[in-house]
């Protein structure tokens, strides 16, 4: 087990290296990063000074080595807009995003898994049809549109919920539900198809033959085995969730990392953009690492070789 964890950790190193390369290249895509990193009205002297201070006049590979060393210590330079360390700004906003992500996951799992189980056990009946229709819609409706609809219906027409901001729980309801909707559809879909597989297995038949209560068979024996693929999907969908965070936080003025990213992009505050891309990619890699480890823990048959 220890060697498995170690090997899995080592495997993340090339990915992390790739992340550093891409974040570096981001500001070099348009040629001279001076145009991106300095305000448009900067003087020629200021530009020249900036180039020599930041080593932009040196060869590209030297610049990259310098960037990689600073990135490894979490130093992405100073925000042009806030004049604070870019990484600090991102870390300050992280709790708000974590709160939103946790609420979203709770909703997605709390609705998605039971919906998938019901659809599988009621296969072909009305409940299954309804759940499958909602699943199709969940794939088709963009989360930002759902957010706008939520604001129109619950904030503008009914006046039940606030349109945005962060503070009390009422402000969490709309963004979390919006963000959860696509995930609910996906989790329900995977749960349904895994449950259909598991319910055909011999051990389910055995449990039923022994006279185990049907609900116990479904929710304990079967679901436990169906849960492993669901977990993998959740890990892979963290990328989707992080992308959704950017849009949802923007719509609902939620003061998290996603909104910071968009504001930084609009303001061409590229040190902050680089820091966000880096942090999001690292979170994504870490979550998938944890999922892989959980996977091995949950299913003893998966070898650690």
């Amino acid at each position: 087990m220890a060697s498995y964890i170690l090997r899995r950790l080592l495997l993340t190193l090339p990915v992390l290296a790739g992340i550093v390369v891409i974040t570096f290249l981001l500001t070099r895509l348009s040629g001279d990063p001076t145009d991106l990193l300095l305000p448009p009205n900067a003087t020629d002297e200021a530009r020249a000074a900036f180039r020599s201070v930041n080593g932009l006049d040196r060869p590209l590979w030297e610049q990259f080595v310098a960037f990689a060393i600073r990135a490894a210590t979490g130093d992405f330079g100073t925000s042009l807009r806030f004049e604070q360390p870019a990484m600090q700004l991102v870390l300050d906003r992280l709790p708000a995003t974590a709160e939103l992500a946790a609420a979203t996951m709770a909703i997605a799992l709390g609705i998605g898994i039971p919906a998938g189980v019901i659809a599988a056990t009621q296969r072909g009946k009305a409940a299954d049809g309804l759940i499958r229709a909602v699943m199709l819609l969940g794939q088709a409706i963009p989360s930002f549109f759902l957010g706008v609809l939520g604001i129109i219906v619950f904030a503008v027409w009914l006046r039940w919920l606030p349109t945005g901001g962060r503070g009390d729980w009422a402000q969490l309801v709309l963004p979390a539900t919006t963000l959860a909707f696509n995930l609910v559809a996906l989790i329900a879909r995977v749960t349904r198809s895994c449950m259909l597989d598991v319910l055909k297995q011999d051990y389910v038949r055995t449990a039923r033959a022994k006279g185990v209560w049907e609900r116990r068979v479904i929710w304990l024996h079967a679901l436990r085995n169906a849960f492993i693929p669901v977990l993998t999907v959740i890990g892979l969908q963290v990328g989707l969730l992080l992308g959704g965070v950017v849009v949802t936080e923007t719509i609902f003025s939620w003061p998290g990392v996603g909104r910071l990213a968009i504001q930084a992009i609009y303001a061409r505050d590229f040190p902050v953009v680089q820091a966000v891309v880096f942090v999001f990619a690292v979170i994504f890699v870490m979550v998938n690492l944890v999922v892989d480890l959980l996977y091995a823990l949950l299913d003893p048959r998966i070898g650690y070789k």
Partner: protein
Amino acid sequence: MSQTTAQTALPATEGSESRARHVLRTTFASWPARLSLLVLALAFAFAIAPSLIAPRDAFVQDLSLRLLPPSWEPRGQAQYWLGTDQLGRDTVARIIHGARITLLVSVLAVVVSAVIGIAAGLAAGFHGGWTDAVILRLIDMQLAFPLILLVIAVVAVVGPSLTNLVIVMGLSGWPRFARIVRGSVLTVRHLEFVDAARAIGASQLRIMARHILPNIMSAIIVYASFEVARMILLEATLSFLGLGVQPPTPTWGGMISEGRRYVNQSWTVAVAPGIAIAAVILAFNILGDALRDALDPQLEDRT
């Protein structure tokens, strides 16, 4: 996917006419598939000739007619069925014109993804060895990224022109194509007709283009239809964030973004383009499902 390939690996030339007809007939056997075809036909008609179809100019502004509600509401006017936006432009006309950018960018992006992905997948599956290893690592690495944020950041750097959007979105999608093609090639590679082609001295390029590609085409087409849906979502998201094709060119995502500020006066400005996006994505997904079932009757329905 491998089952799809095995199915289509049967001689494709013999009676291909009737097979094509059979696939079309089974694809459009159900009413959701027919409805989806209708939706897409409409959307493509909008995209091709918006000015012919739109009831009036989508760009002309009339501030005396700004933010009209839909025609069925008390303040609405009959000729503006879905009302007008904050500059008095007709919402119906703008939705019809918006189809052009959405479909153009998404379809072209999928073409870019498919071309790169098919080339990489063919190379990896056919050559094996270190070519395969390098391409696989690249695929894994790119799939390991939260791509939306990266696409947003890259578009912000290079600027949101139509060409840039197509290239950046296209580059974000190639690994999935490459993976599918690679898998399909691996299952076809050792079948007899490939050996036969090699035996009569066909070049590698010819074997790939004439013998392997036609046999994995149905898998690619099915996947491409899902991928167009995904790209429409991405294009709409970028437009919504102000990083799509710039105004005054109407885009569905952009219309929602502008319209959401005025939902108090007129809710259709923001809601109608959203329904258009959802309808087109839904149509591509339903048709993709139907096409997959028709091309591969052995595949068990699990979704």
